[in-house]
């Protein structure tokens, strides 16, 4: 069993905007690329040109739901480790390989100490960890800990690969324990939520819910006022009435 640190003062994490995510998977492969080259063992792909089973730290899921009225809606939900305050994947670890950092709350796996038992993956209610079968170690999102403090990178690039690459700007990174941070303010403004709060894991990552969809025409009267005919509707030869209005309108232009 591994112990969690005292609540960190800095809680680095992601804010993912489900109103904006188009499900393009850019974050998935940017993550795959960075973390194959860096932090521990590469993310391998087994039977890579056959059935293909690879290790990913971040995957995009799509959910479709049919509201009571109006058209069905689809939500794209990227999912990776949420760096929970009460991370069950840490407390379950028999070797201490899985741990939460006191300084910034990031949950990491020390691959040197990991025996690949997979208990942490079972304990994670989000399915956010994957064993790399080739390396025999547990892999998970590191929040690009080797980017965000990376002194060889320009300051502007010291952010997770998924955030840097996201074309729609649906991913944000920052200190969610600092109410003044941009991410905290975004969460406040947009009503950000915990994923599966009933699990009691207190995730640091936050999701911004989609804004209401398919509202156009809800206030029918207002829009209808923009479509009032400019001439008397006769049902036939309406162009004549229209052109009469046109001549009057042109006088005013």
């Amino acid at each position, binding site marked *: 069993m591994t112990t969690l640190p005292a609540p960190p003062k800095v809680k680095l994490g992601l804010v993912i905007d489900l109103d904006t995510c188009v499900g393009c998977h850019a974050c998935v492969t940017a993550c795959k690329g960075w973390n194959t080259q860096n932090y521990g063992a590469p993310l391998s792909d087994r039977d890579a*040109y056959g059935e293909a089973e690879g290790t990913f730290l971040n995957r995009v899921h799509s959910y479709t739901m049919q509201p009571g009225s109006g058209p*069905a809606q689809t939500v794209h939900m990227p999912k990776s480790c949420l760096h929970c305050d009460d991370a069950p994947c840490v407390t379950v670890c028999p070797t201490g390989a899985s741990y939460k950092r006191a300084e910034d709350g990031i949950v990491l796996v020390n691959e040197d100490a990991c025996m690949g038992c997979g208990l942490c993956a079972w304990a994670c209610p989000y399915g956010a960890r994957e064993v790399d079968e080739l390396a025999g170690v547990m892999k998970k999102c590191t929040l690009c800990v080797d980017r965000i403090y990376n002194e060889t990178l320009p300051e502007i690039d010291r952010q997770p690969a998924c955030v840097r690459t996201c074309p729609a700007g649906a991913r944000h990174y920052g200190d969610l324990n600092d109410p003044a941070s941009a991410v905290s303010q975004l969460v406040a403004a947009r009503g950000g939520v915990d994923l599966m709060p009933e699990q009691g894991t207190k995730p640091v990552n936050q999701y911004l819910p989609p804004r209401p969809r398919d509202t156009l025409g809800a206030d029918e009267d207002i829009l209808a006022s923009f479509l009032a005919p400019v001439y008397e509707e006769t049902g036939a030869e309406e162009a004549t009435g229209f052109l009469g209005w046109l001549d009057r309108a042109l006088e005013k232009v």
Partner: protein
Amino acid sequence: MKDHFDPSPKVGDRVAKTTCYMCACRCGIDVHLKADAEGVERVAYIEGNRDHPVNKGVLCAKGASGIMQHNAPSRLRAPLRRTGPRGSGQFEEITWEEAYETARAILAPIRETDPSKLAFFTGRDQSQSFTSWWAQAFGTPNYAAHGGFCSVNMAAAGIYTVGGAFWEFGSPDWEKTKLFLLFGCAEDHDSNPIKMGLGRLKERGARVVGINPIRTGYNAVADDWYGVTPGTDGLLILSLVHCLLKAGQLDLRYLAEFSDAPVLIDARPGATHGLPLKDDDGHALVWCRKEQRPRCYDAEDVEPDLNGAWAQDGVTHRTVFHAIAHRYLDGAYAPEAVAERVGISARRIRALAGEIARVAFEESWEEPIAWTDFRGRRHETMTARPVAMHAMRGISAHANGFQTCRAIHLLQTLIGSVEAPGGFRFKPPYPKPATAHPKPHCKVTPGAPLDGPHLGFVHGPDDLCLRDDGTPARIDKAFSWDNPMSAHGLMHMVISNAHAGDPYEIDTLFLYMANMAWNSSMNTTGTMAMLTDQRDDGSYVIPNVIYADAYSSEMVAYADLVLPDTTYLERHDCISLLDRPICEPEAAADAIRHPVVAPDRDVVPFQTALLELGARLGLPGMVNDDGSKKYADFADYMVRHERRPGIGPLMGFRGNGEATGRGAPNPDQLNRYIENGAFAVAHVPAEGLYMKPWNKAYQDWAVEIGLYDAPQPFLITLWSEPLRRFQLAAEGHGERQPPDHLRERIKATFDPLPIWYDPMEGHATDPRFTITALTQRPAAMYHSWGTQNAWLRQIHGRNPLYLPTGIWEAQGFREGDWARVTSPHGEIVVPVAHMPGQNDETVWTWNAIGKRKGAWALHENAPEANQGFLLNHLIHELMPPKGDGLRWSNSDPITGQAAWFDLKVAVEKCAPPADLRSTPQFETLDRPVPPGPDVVAWEVKR
């Protein structure tokens, strides 16, 4: 505790900035290179270039997986000569010298006798200005790229109507628009700028409306989704036009000053009926309100009258706008009249029209940019119309797509939003009216170049590419009566026509990166049969097939000679203003690729190989006066070639290195590009940022940097003169007459104003065929290319047929079920899945996921080659036979655009196949490359 990891790893030893090639977006990329244990530089990581005008640092799933594309096991390794029967995939590797000489021995006699016996068509070609130049020098009229099966309806309708098009050629005003309408299925062009733009709209709280039968991707984040029935978008749009006209929600000043709405139309019966009236200099005439007489449209003090009328010789000429009012105020376009057909309630149609009106006119403002228009009038501001529109392949890929796209441009113009702040903006070199483009050329002279560029814009029957006997001059029948305005050619008809000898037989089919034996052809099975069909004497009906590709695609197996290309990180490329550049509305921009790693195979960049072949054939422009080779390689061409004096493939760093656009060749040009991040940018002056077609500051700037040689202001062309000229011919006027079997179709579809007609009428040959089947490209794949990518194929390795709730429930489908899908042309058996967010009359799947066994270095158990499937087997390149013995192409009658989306099918549940494989299945191809490795874990370690 000391970290067990390095918190500051060096990403690589150096960064090479170049240009992505994973789709048509052409983003800037930072390629991090690192030496491995042997000291060989390898690609370690690819990310977006923050300074790049297209992507500003971001990168999509494809671009970020470029490393797996570059390392793909499917890469061809050496030139190949066929040893087995065509289509078997049996080859021997040969030297480049053998390859060049084999190609020369085939091509030289063709050029000396009849250059039209060569059909040279390019697919995934981003150097069309170069490949077309080569084909022109060879002298064949048979050249085009893949636009005819991709986007020509969109491009041609846009250029003929507003002088520019959507996709890479225009853009919503992302920073200012308040209402964005995205029309049409498929969500690809242009990839990252649209995602970035949608993100900006979301940030600002602007409303996004998706009009698309399928609610995926961009439509999933759309605030409002209009799940239109496929092929009816035009009717929906014209209904919006109806509503706006009726309510007078129009930008009358814009229409009068910048469109042809006030132009007078000839009312005299006869050969000029319905053409715009013009003065002796060819300038369109408008009725001047001030002087109450017809005047030239561009006179400085003219006051064009939208409702002008000129009584002359017993007839009254009236305006285009008069015709528009009469046409679209008709009750047939009322929301109630179209609702059922388009699959959207009248209430929702009205809501959209009302919102367009509200935003265009209530949320408008005056943008404080003073400017001078083409009439010489000074304006202190520009009027914003913050409604932007963009359209996708779903608009283009129907046989009514040209007119549908014109309908969108009509809608944009009525509210004055083309080039207005907040509206739709052109990217240089657009705006550029159709009249400023070349016309097509087809005059063949043995041993000599073609008489001009192949592709262009026709303005009437006189411009068609016909032989003396009136039959089509081109193998694809482009610019013939079958599809007169086929500005991009008809790649989808080349193999079919060559096989049928209609209009004539060819000797050699030369293709570049076009997977015609698989996902890039309609009627895939038939195409494979045509490529392998033999005459009685055992010779092939299409005698020679030369193919260039970087990868082991299905098409490779059907070639006699294969020229292996490099990957995009191993070659020079030129993303040029001469064809399809990377401009933004606020700047002209072009880019290069340059080799950032050396190939480890015996491969040559295709453009360099083509220059070598051209030199061996002695093609003009490719040899010096003494007959020696003129360009060492494509890089040399990029620097030294001049299309017009001072105008070359690359705009930046010309002359002494400081000139942009115009200037002498600069030997140091490519180094300057590389230093600058592999691109060059020229900013549009502030006064010219909007209203570009009419804006003197923009026009003068465009001339200065060489986009054109004189200002090209023009009026938006709502009434299309070329369309009317073809219609007049069909009515019996003029020397050049269409064949009788095409007369009625031309009369009906070449309406000078946008119309809607049912594009699928001829496809529903049986009452069972009620459902439209569509394909779309996933954002994370580029057609067949993604499948060889070990990362991307894990995202989209499977493609069920997605069924709407109605069909799903009516037939009691359940997860894991299969269906038999039947069209007038064929049958497939495929896995299905339920997707509620789609139009009730629509089924769809991801494009080009299905693969043939043996191709792309995939293993036998790859899901793409087992469960994966193509809808292409259900689509024919010809219409179902009409009993007249004629070969009617399955294309837009105006442009020849392949009508991929006019596919009508029946879907019925069936038992899963015992082997759980989709049908049809084909023999496994022999592999010119070994299958990919079992495990990939690409870490570059010292």
